[in-house]
């Protein structure tokens, strides 16, 4: 019996991570209608940032400061992704992207001209083989920047009401890029992220409960409630308005840009929190996002991509189901539980579980 309770507690902890990622996905989905496959990877980046600031070799900041800065980074990063990548695809300006591309390419070109030379397919052209002094390559690069800017401005189409598929692919691409950025910046070794509470446990009856488990579950619950309240607020309502019917909302004078910026910031923050908690309770590693994003989407599906409580409960259910199935039946069944659940649920309720979900088809 205690065994079962033990498994349930473990399941709730795992579930809280699924739920949080799911919530992040739903927030972005509700307000900008983008299925963000990169959510977990963005969160992982923030988590690594927290670890690096607190435990990393270079910097030894106090834990809470590191968390504060790391979470701020998570929010800002989320906003940046929306600002640069998502805007053009959701009918907003493509200028930021053009500028970003121009600058980054300029930077790359300085490097290339200076030593490596341009890529294979043009480096046979005499003079592009690289090896220029810094000054020359600087000039060459700067000259090329406006061209890139104009090119991007011209060819990046601003698409209104683009369907989910390209957006999904865009975020998949982002996932890959972020994954390798993390590997480049933070290395590929798994890392232990020490929190003040990690390792401590207490007992209820003969059930052991770790403080990190309490923190994770508690945070999950708190964030879920916080989001629910937020979406009742003025801004929350506007967000939903944008998602339901972008153009009308814009006509009503709601600034879509700001709203979706906000939504992505919140999404990033929540995901960051999720991955940091997970890192503190288990370990930080490159693979963890890949495993978590699918579970997050499953939680979001169980909430019909709109209902926050539905998503939270969905995530928890998946977590507990895994743990209990693993403990009571066989651990080789555990990985399949989440998949079985979502498949069965979708067969039974094609519109998701919640009544709210039926109102909007994703």
């Amino acid at each position, binding site marked *: 019996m205690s065994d079962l309770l033990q498994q349930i507690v473990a399941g709730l902890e795992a579930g809280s991570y699924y739920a949080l990622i799911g919530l992040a996905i739903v927030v972005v989905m509700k307000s900008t209608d983008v299925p963000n496959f990169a959510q977990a990877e963005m969160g992982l980046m923030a988590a690594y940032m927290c670890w690096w600031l607190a435990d990393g070799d270079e910097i030894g900041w106090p834990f809470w400061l590191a968390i504060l800065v790391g979470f701020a980074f998570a929010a800002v990063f989320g906003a940046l992704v929306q600002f640069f990548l998502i805007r053009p695809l959701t009918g907003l300006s493509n200028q930021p992207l053009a500028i970003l591309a121009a600058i980054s390419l300029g930077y790359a070109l300085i490097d290339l001209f200076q030593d490596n030379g341009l890529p294979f397919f043009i480096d046979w052209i005499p003079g592009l083989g690289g090896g220029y002094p810094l000054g020359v390559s600087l000039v060459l690069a700067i000259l090329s920047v406006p061209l890139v800017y104009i090119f991007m401005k011209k060819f990046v189409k601003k698409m209104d009401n683009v*369907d989910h598929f390209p957006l999904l692919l865009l975020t*998949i691409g982002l996932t890959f890029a972020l994954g390798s950025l993390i590997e480049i910046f933070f290395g590929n070794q798994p890392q232990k992220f020490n929190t003040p509470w990690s390792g401590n446990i207490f007992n209820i009856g003969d059930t052991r409960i770790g403080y990190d488990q309490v923190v994770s579950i508690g945070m999950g619950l708190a964030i879920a409630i916080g989001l629910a309240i937020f979406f009742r607020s003025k801004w929350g309502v506007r967000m939903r308005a944008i998602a339901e019917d972008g153009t009308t909302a814009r006509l009503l004078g709601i600034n879509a840009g700001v709203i979706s910026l906000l939504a992505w910031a919140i999404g990033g923050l929540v995901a960051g929190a999720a991955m940091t908690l997970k890192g503190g309770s288990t370990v930080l590693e490159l693979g963890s996002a890949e495993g978590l994003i699918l579970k997050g989407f499953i939680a979001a599906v169980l909430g019909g991509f709109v209902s926050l409580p539905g998503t939270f409960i969905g995530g928890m259910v998946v977590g507990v189901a895994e743990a209990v199935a693993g403990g009571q039946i066989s651990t080789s069944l555990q*990985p*399949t539980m989440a*998949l079985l659940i979502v498949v069965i649920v979708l067969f039974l309720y094609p519109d998701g579980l919640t009544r709210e979900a039926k109102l909007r088809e994703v």
Partner: protein
Amino acid sequence: MALLEKRNLERYRTLASVKTNSSGFPLYPPKASGIKGQRRLITSTGIFVILAFLPWLPILGWFTIFNPATNYGLGNIAYVFAYAAAGVGFNLLIGYSGTLGLAHAGIFALGAYGTAILSAPQECLDYDTCETIIRPAVAGYGWPFLVALPVVCIVAALIGALVGFPAARLKGFYLAIATLALGELIVKLISLDAKLWSGLKTNSGTGKQVPIFELFGSGQLKSAYFISLASLIITFVAYVIYTENRLGRTLKAVRDIEIATGPLGISGTYYKLVAFGLSSFAAAFAGAAWAQNSAFVNPTSFRTRLLVFLLVVLILGGLGKLWGPLIGAFVFVYLRQEFQDQQKLLFFLIGVALMLAILLLPEGFASLPDRMRDSRWVQDLRRRFKSAKVSS
């Protein structure tokens, strides 16, 4: 305008070969007569003939990554074909019938494992006694490969149709998630096999040494190359025939005017399942070819990452474009080998390439020629060229 039509009409009447109705209107879209009309047939046959003889005419010799004179290059090209074949099937499903089914990593795995297990020799029947660690997975059913392959592909097609059942009920993104989960589920079931399928005599854990099928004793790589090429050609031809005939227009109807298909006597559900089945057949075939090239299969190769690779191939090449998958596969494998020794950078590049493709070239590389033709300054050039000719 109408005059022009009339003139064409006269020509059709004179052309005996063109099928017309009683009053002489052509029943099939009029083709330009002679070579011009057959251009695509000729080009595609030409390309495939060249590909078929590539191992003996190293025209890419200067190009290490795809140099057919070396096993290395040959293997890479074979991978390109396998990816392209799977991509063609994917194209029929996503690009043509507009159904967002993402179970293909799993189906791919089915093809690979199915052929490996069925065609492996019957040995080592007892889970406890045989030294499975020394001899990874050589226990199977001893079917000839050429028998196992079609069987596996057909079974995979049926399973694919089964996976497609949610398509009947689910909309867009829900469908994507459901099929994604089902695909993962298939891979999970495969990786349970050490325990689950021990009855099936495959008993070495999840990795399987793939029994190599030697085409006329031409060695592993050459036969892998030709199996991959066969998978590409077969899927390609099927794609062309189907998309240009009844199935094609029916799938289009299901995609564009699903609401109206009922009163036309078309069952939307049935045709969605057909699309799933066909693309699964292609995926399984590609998987088998991939396995022949890799000589070893492992569930970790068929996780979500493979699906993403297929999507990259599809998008880089161009969704719904005939040559898209082949072009995309070449670009993808090229990138992967060019930056092989700096994998960190590689995945960054693949990610960026995918994002740029979505933002800049939504129709993929295959659409570049059209885009060039339509772009203003090219047309301007053409006009100048014409006027110059006239004046001279």
